[in-house]
């Protein structure tokens, strides 16, 4: 975004024109550059694009019930299997959970990021550290600690009862506990990009808006919100997409009963061995991702005041 386009242009202009006697040197330079790219190419092509292509291919195959080999039949049966009631609930739950937690993350994250950005530089740094440090600690232990927190007779349950609630909270191992776990794990990923875009707001803009008679609400709507859009979009992508494929959080906080798409996908590969169906699931998650990216990227330049 704040990439140094000017510098690039200067470099390109300053580069000597490819005069005939120097052609050989330029060729070795090209070779050297390709060699520099080779490690990146290897990991990206061989270990990322090829595997994804492979599962895209297999998602149209089928498993022979006798010898358990996979055959390509260009069938769409694996995609149609989503509509069976066995999976439909889980898939719907995944979408609802990831959308609602992403929205909750966006609202809470925005409020918090806005609060940070209005503090003195010292307080800003302190608050950022307070956000980032929990994020650096072991993901699995952090998630696990919600089992302690949310269990009946746990601290939150006791607190609720002390406030006068009857019975127990009963939210551990439900979609509520999964939602809380996702919100918890992904919130810093939403706060940071929004903060980065809010931090760039020139305070003079507020003074200008105030001088021109804008109410605080109008200042917020016309100055803060438009400036926050790039960060908000980045946050929604970084949170929403991985949340859709979340595997560990439902494993721990769903107690093996309440699952998400990521768990079904994992089971197809690790347990039942129905690779074509698992592949179809993976491809669908990728498709949702691409649609989301495409839509949000189109939304971005329109809102970006540049």
């Amino acid at each position, binding site marked *: 975004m704040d990439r140094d386009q000017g510098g690039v242009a200067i470099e390109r202009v300053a580069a000597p024109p490819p005069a005939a006697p120097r052609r050989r040197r330029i060729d070795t330079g090209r070779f050297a550059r390709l060699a520099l790219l080779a490690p990146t190419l290897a990991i990206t092509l061989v*270990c990322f694009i090829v595997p994804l292509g492979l*599962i895209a291919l297999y998602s149209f195959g089928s498993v022979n019930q006798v010898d358990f080999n996979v055959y390509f039949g260009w069938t769409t049966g694996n995609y149609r299997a989503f509509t069976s009631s066995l999976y439909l609930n889980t898939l719907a739950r995944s979408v609802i959970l990831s959308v609602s937690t992403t929205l909750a993350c966006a609202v809470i994250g925005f*409020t918090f990021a806005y609060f940070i950005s209005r503090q003195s530089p010292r307080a800003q740094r302190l608050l950022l550290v307070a956000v980032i440090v929990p994020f*650096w600690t072991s993901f699995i232990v952090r998630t*696990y600690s919600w089992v302690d927190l949310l*269990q009946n*007779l746990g601290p939150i349950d006791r607190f609720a009862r002390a406030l006068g609630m009857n019975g127990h909270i009963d939210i551990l191992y439900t979609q509520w506990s999964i939602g809380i776990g996702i919100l918890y794990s992904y919130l810093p990923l939403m706060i*940071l990009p929004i*903060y980065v875009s809010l931090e760039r707001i020139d305070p003079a803009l507020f003074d200008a808006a105030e001088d021109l008679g804008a109410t605080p609400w109008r200042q917020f709507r016309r100055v803060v919100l438009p400036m926050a859009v790039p960060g908000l979009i980045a946050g929604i992508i970084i949170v929403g997409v991985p949340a859709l494929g979340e595997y560990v959080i439902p494993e721990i906080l769903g107690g093996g009963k309440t699952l998400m798409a990521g768990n079904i996908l994992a089971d197809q590969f690790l347990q039942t061995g129905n690779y074509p169906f698992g592949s179809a699931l993976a491809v669908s998650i*990728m498709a949702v991702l691409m649609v989301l990216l495409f839509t949000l990227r189109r939304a971005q330049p329109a809102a970006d005041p540049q």
Partner: protein
Amino acid sequence: MNVRRHPFAASVSLLVLLFLWLPLIVVAVNSFNQQTIMAGWGGFTTHWYGLALHDQNVRTGLETTLYIAVASALLSLAIAVSGALWWRRASPKARAVYDGLIYARIILPEVVSATALFFLFLKIHFTLGLTAIVIGHTVWNSAYAAIIVQARMAGLDPALEEAAADLGATPWRTFRRVTFAALLPAIIAAGLLAFTFSFDDVVTSVFLQGASNTPLPVVILGMIRFRITPEINAIGLLVMLFTVTLMSIAVLIYATAGSLGRSGRRGNMLDIYRGR
């Protein structure tokens, strides 16, 4: 703090901070808690630490994880640094493709990239195990490392290298004394970051471990599934302290590195979160 002007944002923020820190406090407190069901305070003990440190699964898990994390961090650095050197001279179009693929490696749900890699290894009969895990971690780790190294590279003025060359330095010496030296803070920070991410990983390891020794986070996942004990809190607190220390060092190195020629902008770990 500027609380009075934003009472609503301030109270939400207070709740957010509580929300973010509560689980860590619970882990820390329960790791010293005598009561086994952890529903209340049963007195102080260091018993769980003794159990954790003598658990053979935990010890081999830790060794395995350290090996994987070091290997993956080194591999990621090699990829990130060579990639950043390429990126510098690449055309804007090629850069866009390169950046897009970095981004894709980071945001694609890990369960998707891990299953795809698992399936590829199965098809080409590549034995699952430590090497497979290292490769799997490097897929996304190299992307994180690339962003950090690249951000520093973008601020490096080519005039510095031209000056070195004009003063008679050989290309290798120029690279070593100018380019590499300038990138070093980013390289160290990216290495520590990659190490920590790998050290913490569950999903990719679950898919690619095969019959090898189980890495520590997967050992912890197994403990959570089958027997909930306060021992996990003890291991958890130790692991947390370790990763927080490493990440703090990474940020300090990156943030205190001097500015470079052209941009004058100081390193900032938030570069990772800058929207593209």
